[in-house]
């Protein structure tokens, strides 16, 4: 068990900026509203719009989740390497190459 080697103020600032970008996406998404009549492609257009909105929201949520875990490392002075690794050790697989 060892401490975390980090410039906490700088890292806190980096994460805050990143979270702001995730919030921007969520905020734009919350304004979605359309009643566009898509003619013969109505249901296909709705499918594509849903895919786009879900993917954008998933992007924002993933980043927010990442920032939450990293913030724990930044703000919890008692957190150790092993505590944080437990939360961030799932990404070494080849599916993420």
């Amino acid at each position, binding site marked *: 068990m*060892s401490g975390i*080697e*980090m410039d906490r103020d*700088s*890292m806190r600032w*980096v994460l805050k*900026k990143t979270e702001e*970008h*995730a919030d*921007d*996406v*969520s905020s734009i*998404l*919350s304004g*979605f*509203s*359309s*009643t*566009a*009549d*898509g*003619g*013969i492609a*109505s*249901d*296909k*257009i*709705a*499918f*594509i*719009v*849903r*895919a*786009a*909105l*879900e*993917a*954008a929201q*998933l*992007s924002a*949520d*993933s*980043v*927010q*989740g*990442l920032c*939450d*875990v990293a913030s724990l*490392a930044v703000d919890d002075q008692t957190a150790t*390497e092993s505590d944080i*690794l*437990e*939360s*961030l*050790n*799932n*990404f070494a*697989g080849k*599916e*993420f190459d």
Partner: protein
Amino acid sequence: MGIDLTIPGDPAAIRSLAEWLDPKLNNPVNDLHQRVKTTSFMSWDYWRGETATAFRETTDAIAKGIDPVDSYIADAAEVFRAYSERLRRGKEKFAEYGESAKNTWLTVVGPIIAPPIAPQQFFTKPGSPPPIQRGPNGECIVQRPPGAYEESLELYKKIANDVGTWWGDLENWVDEHIVLLMTRVEEFQKLTNAFAALQKGNYVALSFLLNRTAAQWEGNLTFFEGEAKKTQGLYESHNQRLRSGDPRIRSAAEKMSKPELRAARHALASEVGKLKVGTKIIPLVGPAIDVVSGGVEIANGGSPSTVVVGVASGVGGGVVAGAVITGTVVAAPVVVTAVAVTAASVAAAEGSRWLWEHGVSLDVREAIDSGDFGYIIR
């Protein structure tokens, strides 16, 4: 009977939807992607050790997952813009058909051109004029000049053929561009993997993420989907009526596509129709079993869509198999049939057509093809 000149759809509203997608949504998504990459890069200065390495691995995985999202949104917006312009140009063209029909002794009531009626025959002495015809209120009916009936019949046939061709062409276009976008939901696999990995055994992130599953836009999107479902049903019956109205329309439209493509199209319409309003396409936790099981049924030959999977296996078999067997893409049956439509449509298209499409946006290419230069310079 007759030719219905109605083209369902609201070009201006579809265009607004496209504008919302890109730039309004696309720009912040693209900024987010760049920011995540920057975050990973900057962390080298501020965070060292094993946890820092894990953080960067996580950040990089999420960045890769987000990577295709902005291009998907941008492509969807481009296709929607082009589609809205197609509808707008089509409505203008059909309005011209209505005007020319009126000017050529055809009866036009609302959007319907009635079939021409043969003139009444009279036997009169040579050189004497035909008797004056009167309407129900005693008004004098203007006699059509000699040859007017034949001229109106010719125009009627031509309009029926052009209307059928226009619809056939639009359906092909929908397959090549809109259905193609449906098949691309698999591009979000890495994002789904990254999100799932973030949640795995991760109580810190999970507690937060579970609170965010009900997004604010869901209600408005569900309403939009509900409306789309209603209008889709109306337009399918409109198209059936249109084609049964005049056989020339049906044959002109069907000349534009092969029977196997029409079968695949029919199967896709059925699969999309089965999706409930509000069905999630990208799963938050694991696959949505009710939808995926339909895909397994197709793979086992238990569904009428089997023939469609057969069509797809020739071209997109790998993709189809991946979608069905792993079950990681939630809307598997829809995606399978969408791949089939795209495959049949690509097989029918000229190869060269697919090669020049990069570089100039779809809506502008289409405007050039239609001679609509006003669209390009405005």
